[in-house]
């Protein structure tokens, strides 16, 4: 489904991704771990089409197409979804208006009829319950005044509404308490299916207790330095990153930046 080859990306002339190779098949869940500042969010943003980052080399094939050629909105319509590490607050645009516009843009793309307000509300209410968000939040501005946990749940809600074929989750687990973590991981597990792939950026092993990945990759300094099964996550939990030759201070230094 997703094939990344030798992907290099820079921002403001600084190379952040230094040759990423990754193969993700439908039905698989991949976890990407690594210290702060290693380029995890950059990878996620590049896949979603954020042109703050310049791709300098490499290719990304998604469902047979050159993904990097496509505009962000077309990637989304083709099934790419990014749950942002830092979801944006947009006062003045209600969550409802935002999600309905997104859902209908997708339906339009698929040649399906638009959802009217009543149909949409029914669906939105159900899904908001699924992620334990009070439906009243639909009337508020997009992420406006949301707590960190509410923002993350809102990202999962959008994924559930849009049913993407590739869901990229950027630290959707960070800043969550135990209950919220359960809600979010239930949401992610609900997304798991044969024809969908999930790329999960995380910092912590604890999410992987709830969502068992098929593969774990360690990203350090813009490269995947190690890949393995879920046992790799457990090993990282136990031994940290240093045994992989990743300087401890790289991790700590960069963590203040992000």
């Amino acid at each position, binding site marked *: 489904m997703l094939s990344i080859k030798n992907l290099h990306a820079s921002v403001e002339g600084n190379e952040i991704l230094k040759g990423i190779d990754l193969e993700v098949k439908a039905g698989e869940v991949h976890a990407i771990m690594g210290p702060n500042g290693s380029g995890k969010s950059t990878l996620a943003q590049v896949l979603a089409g954020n042109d703050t980052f310049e791709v300098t080399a490499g290719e990304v094939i998604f469902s047979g197409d050159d993904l990097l050629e496509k505009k962000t909105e077309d990637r989304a319509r083709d099934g790419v979804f990014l749950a942002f590490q830092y*979801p944006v607050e*947009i006062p003045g*645009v209600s969550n409802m208006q935002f999600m309905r516009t*997104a859902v209908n843009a997708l339906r339009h793309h698929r040649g399906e009829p638009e959802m009217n307000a009543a149909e949409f509300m029914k669906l939105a209410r159900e899904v908001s319950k699924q992620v334990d968000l009070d439906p009243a939040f639909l009337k508020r501005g*997009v992420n406006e005044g949301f707590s960190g946990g509410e923002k993350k749940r809102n990202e999962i809600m959008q994924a559930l509404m849009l049913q993407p074929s590739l869901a990229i989750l950027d630290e959707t687990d960070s800043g969550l308490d135990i209950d919220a973590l359960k809600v979010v991981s239930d949401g992610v597990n609900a997304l798991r299916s044969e024809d969908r792939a999930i790329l999960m950026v995380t910092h912590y092993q604890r999410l992987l207790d709830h969502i068992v990945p098929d593969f774990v990759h360690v990203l350090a300094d813009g490269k995947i330095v190690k890949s393995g099964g879920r046992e790799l996550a457990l090993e990282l939990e136990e031994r940290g990153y240093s045994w992989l030759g990743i300087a401890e201070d790289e991790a700590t230094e960069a963590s203040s930046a992000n």
Partner: protein
Amino acid sequence: MKPAPTLSTAFLQPAGQALPAPLLELRKQRGAALVDMPLPTRKTENWKYSSKRLKLTEEMAISLPTTGKAGSALAVPGYKVVFTNGVMIPEASEYPDLDDISIQRFGELSEAQARDLAERLDSTLDMKTVQFAGLNTARFEDGLVIRLNPNAVLDQPLFIINEVTADASGSAFPRIYVDAGANSQITLVEEYISSGQEPVMVNTVTEFTLAEGANVTNIRLCMDGENVQHIGATGVRQQRNSRFESHCMGFGGPLRRHDLQVRLEEQGAECKLNGVVVTQGTQHYDNHTTIEHIAANCDSEETYRNIATDKSHAVFNGRIHIHQDAQKSNANMNNKNLLLTTGAEIDTKPELEIYADDVKCAHGATIGQLDEESLFYLVSRGIPRREANVLLTMAFINELVVQIPVEAVRETVHTRLNQFFDQAFQEV
């Protein structure tokens, strides 16, 4: 050195004599006072950005002919008075005959009523700063005077449709005077529209006096065509515990100028001034507002938003003047501006003059662009870029649009905004 240009005397020849003597006399006096009136130049502080947009040709000096009929039949959800080229069209107007609210055109006034009105006209405005209001007084051919007795409540909005038919060059001078008695209430919608393509000037004056406890809402929709230079002034005087609310919705043109002057003359008076302006192409819109806090314990709340795209230019100048006796004044002024292109220009200037020591005063002005991160977030959900731009632009002004208390007006505004968005984001 070239002498400063003055207003051509051709502009001082009023048309239409169907007015009571005191109003004809007032007109004559004002006209005489405007002989050699210097036209604003770049050096005229309050016309700094707009003087170059003022293009008064000799052909525009004549009054647009009184057509006697309304150009377009407009259905409105309320009462309606139609003016074409500054002259009322009774056949197109529909308003009630009430005991406690009188709605009259200037020509209908008795000698005594006209004498009273002549004394009141221009009294709400600082005529030195709004010379074009003086021109209106020198030129009006008709006008509408609305008087509400104490406690009178007009049960539906009154729409005043001011249309100009620009089939030839010329000018029109619509005039409105509202005298709201104690505890009376009215919602007045002024709609300025035009037909025809010749260059014309519309020079308007609307005045309100609010007695104790009166509650007046004024919606002003400026929607004239691309051939219309619109120069308007609104003056408001407020007595004790009265409340004035204004919603100025402006769509750009070759020249749009609106001066809004509010005087809070007695304790407990309160005003809320909302304004939205959108400009595109090479349009120009200039709002100048002044709030005079004269008495103590008055509140003013002002929120204006400008959106400019292409090579257009929007100007906001908001002055708050807190007089020495106006202790415990509460004044809040906020102006936010959105530039959609680098070629557009917005100039904003909040001016605070405070002579009392115990006041709460806040003002803020910002100029920005659409937030790239927000745009990316929206399009990353599959929302078309054009729609994402519209959502964010609408978010910038929606707070003000939803406050317009008449649904039909909100719909008109939405329709016009959609036309604006279609143009503004056609290449997105």
